[in-house]
């Protein structure tokens, strides 16, 4: 279980090799994460590559004003938030439930097989899955609509109906990732002290009661940790996935900040505007992760620093 650890003053003389080993990592972080942050200035410039970061004309908050004046902005922010929140909730719930269920299976071979099968889609890229899903979800001859038709349902235009698109995005994302996410919970489950179960049985707890009073509290810190970490990505609704599945038909509910930035920045070469939107996204992300970190330390006693 995670617990708040009070650090002692660092003993430099004894620990210096450890700090030295930290150095390459820190250098990488600086080069690839902090140095590129200089590029943020593009958000406040009419950026011209030949003049560089410091020669381009400053335009102040013009890009931000333009961004807020665009009719798309409200839609894409809402789309991003809705899709990301649904993904976070489902992305926590499904793997936890799955891990609990799998944990109850005693037969090792079955357990392993199931785990490998659900774990597999994680390794497929959205480019490939995008092509597969267009066929699987097709209205004429797609497997899903055929199965639904046995029950007298459909056909549904999953990838073209703005009302269904977000659902499709969330379900396919959860389907792809839940097997992989469950690994963490399975690891946490195996870390629970068996003595606790024995004690619970002694006290007459049923299977259900054991799950409720021993298993769930045992993995709760990990669940909270995962939730906290995922909230930092609340504005990442999944560029790869949506980019490969969306179309003008579902812009209304499916166009997110990242796909918009891609179109404005890379396709239309509006570097300043695209950077401004990206920066806006990062600032909101920072606020959200700060709040969630505070909440996690307050309610789950979880701290990183």
């Amino acid at each position, binding site marked *: 279980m995670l617990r708040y650890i009070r650090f002692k003053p660092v003993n430099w003389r004894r620990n210096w090799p450890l700090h030295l080993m930290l150095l390459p990592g820190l250098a990488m972080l600086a080069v690839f994460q902090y140095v590129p942050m200089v590029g943020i200035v593009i958000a406040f410039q009419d950026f011209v590559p030949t003049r560089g970061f410091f020669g381009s004309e400053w335009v102040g908050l013009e890009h931000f004003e333009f961004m807020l004046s665009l009719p798309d902005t409200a839609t894409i922010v809402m789309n991003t938030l809705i899709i990301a929140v649904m993904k976070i909730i489902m992305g926590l719930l499904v793997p936890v439930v799955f891990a609990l269920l799998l944990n109850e299976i005693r037969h090792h071979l079955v357990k392993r097989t199931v785990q490998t099968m659900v774990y597999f889609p994680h390794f497929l890229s959205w480019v490939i899955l995008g092509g597969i899903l267009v066929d699987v979800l097709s*209205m*004429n001859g797609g497997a899903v609509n055929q199965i639904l038709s046995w029950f007298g349902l459909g056909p549904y235009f999953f990838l*073209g109906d703005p009302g269904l698109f977000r659902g499709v995005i969330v379900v396919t994302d959860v389907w792809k990732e839940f097997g992989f996410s469950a690994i963490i919970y399975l690891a946490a489950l195996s870390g629970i002290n068996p003595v606790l179960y024995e004690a619970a049985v002694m006290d007459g707890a049923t299977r259900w009661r054991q799950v409720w009073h021993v298993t769930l509290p045992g993995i709760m810190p990990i669940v909270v940790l995962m939730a906290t970490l995922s909230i930092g990505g609340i504005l990442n609704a999944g560029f790869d996935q949506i980019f490969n599945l969306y*179309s*003008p*038909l579902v812009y*209304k509910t499916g166009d997110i900040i990242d796909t918009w930035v891609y179109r404005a920045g890379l*396709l239309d070469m509006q570097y300043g505007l695209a950077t401004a939107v990206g920066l806006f996204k990062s600032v909101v992300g920072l606020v959200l992760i700060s709040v969630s970190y505070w909440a996690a330390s307050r309610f789950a006693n979880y701290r990183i620093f």
Partner: protein
Amino acid sequence: MPRRQPSTKSWLHLLTVITLTTTVACSTGNTTNNNSSVNDPAATPPDSNNTVQEETNLGAYPETVTVSIGASVGAGINYPEGESVEDNIHTRLNKEMLNIQYENKFVVEASKMSEKINLAIASNDLPDVLLVGAEQLQKMIKNDQLADLSSVYDSYASDELKRNLEYQDRVSFAPAEMDGKLYGIPAPKDYGNSIPVMYIRQDWLDELGLEPPQTMDELTAVAKAFVENDPDQNGQKDTYAISLESGLNTLAMDAIAAAYGAYPGIMVEDESGNIVYGSTQPQMKEALGKMQELYALGAFDPEFGIKDYSVTVEKIMAGKVGILFGAFWNPLYPLRQNLENEPDAQWNAYPIPTLDGGEPTPKALPFTNEWLVVSKDFEHPEAIIKSMNLWTDMFISSTPELFPEAQTRWYEALSGTHKGLEAHNYARPFFFDSPFGNLEVGRELREYQATNDESKLVSAKAKDVYNNQIKPGGLQGWAMEKMYYEAEAVLDSYESLTYPAFVGAATPSMLSKGSTLGKLESEAFVNIIMGASLDTFDEFVTKYHKLGGDDILEEIQSAS
């Protein structure tokens, strides 16, 4: 209005070139003319003016000049054994004939090229020569990244190169000119690429006792019959009448819109002579109303909104579609592949239908939408023109004057080592084509067909097409006949075409509002076709003007 080319159009370009290789002639007759001019720097280029010839060396450099480019690989770009993107027939011929060594500063997949170029522009890390689109060109001019090419073009370009690039009163040069300077050399494609031709399954028509449609009402009737009366006789209702894919600027939408006098995606002149945006005109509303009606009766794939051109191609090949509004080269792809699957299929080409059966006036886009640009740091901008001269003589010219030997070797390669490899795709520095070459070849072939007089086949290309491709027959012969006898004849029969009324450089608002407006338009159009109320169109027009359309029109007004 210059806009981002949708992926459909990139397909078109990729595939056009299929046409072009196959039309190349095998003219061994021209080899002996004047080899000396190639290798001897002092040799006089034909017809060039005396003051220029003193310092203008159209042949090989005395010392090797190295030129870096951004190269692409991917579908349609195939090398024979022993060749690669670094070292191939084109780099070798350039080295040998001109002493120019081409190097690749980067190599990317063809479909990612535009993005890679955007990155290269943004990071100011450019190769010596690039092939860029209109918006990239404007960006680079604004960034002051490009060399002025006006003087090297004037003194180095061969007459044949000029004749091809300057087709239709130098219209291709306008977007690359600014303040009396020339920042890009046009890389034209065939003028017919953007002009729709109606291909129709004749066997389906016969099966159902129908005539090829000439009016929109007849088109609707044929579409209905193709959907409901099982034209392929397999007992299943699994056919679509008209192929349509997602995106604006599809040839199917262009063809149907043209019947109503609507020209989506380009700037047009209204009755009072003002420049207006074609997609927002009332005619477009009527056209969309028609497409909605066709969609409702099942003429299109109900999921067309999420499918791209590759799906259209698949369905044509599988014999599920009866009408294709396509380009003149479509017999080579995908119609030919349909015949491989269904040997009994019959495709005929007709002019697009009109509202009342009169003369159609289809939309046509400029035949140049890419330009060769040279970094301003590059010391030998003339090397590019020299390579373009070489390519013109190899591929376009019927009487090559500077490099006859290169043409001979190129044709030999095409019928030998490079047969069927579409090797023109990796021409150095970049591929371009004559805008009118296929039109001329088609005319000669039809003349010959009508008169049976072999002297009508004047150009080497026409002779090659006839002797090496049509005569041997087979599917290739079938496709070439369809293309030159029928599709090119349809193109030739169009008496008027509607070109964009504005072909200048993209205005600032086009660049900054383009993506918002494009999104608005594609969303509105797809929804209307799929059954949304026609009032959606009026909402779209209001929004278009409010969100930047007015600014764009104002900028165009002040620019012209």
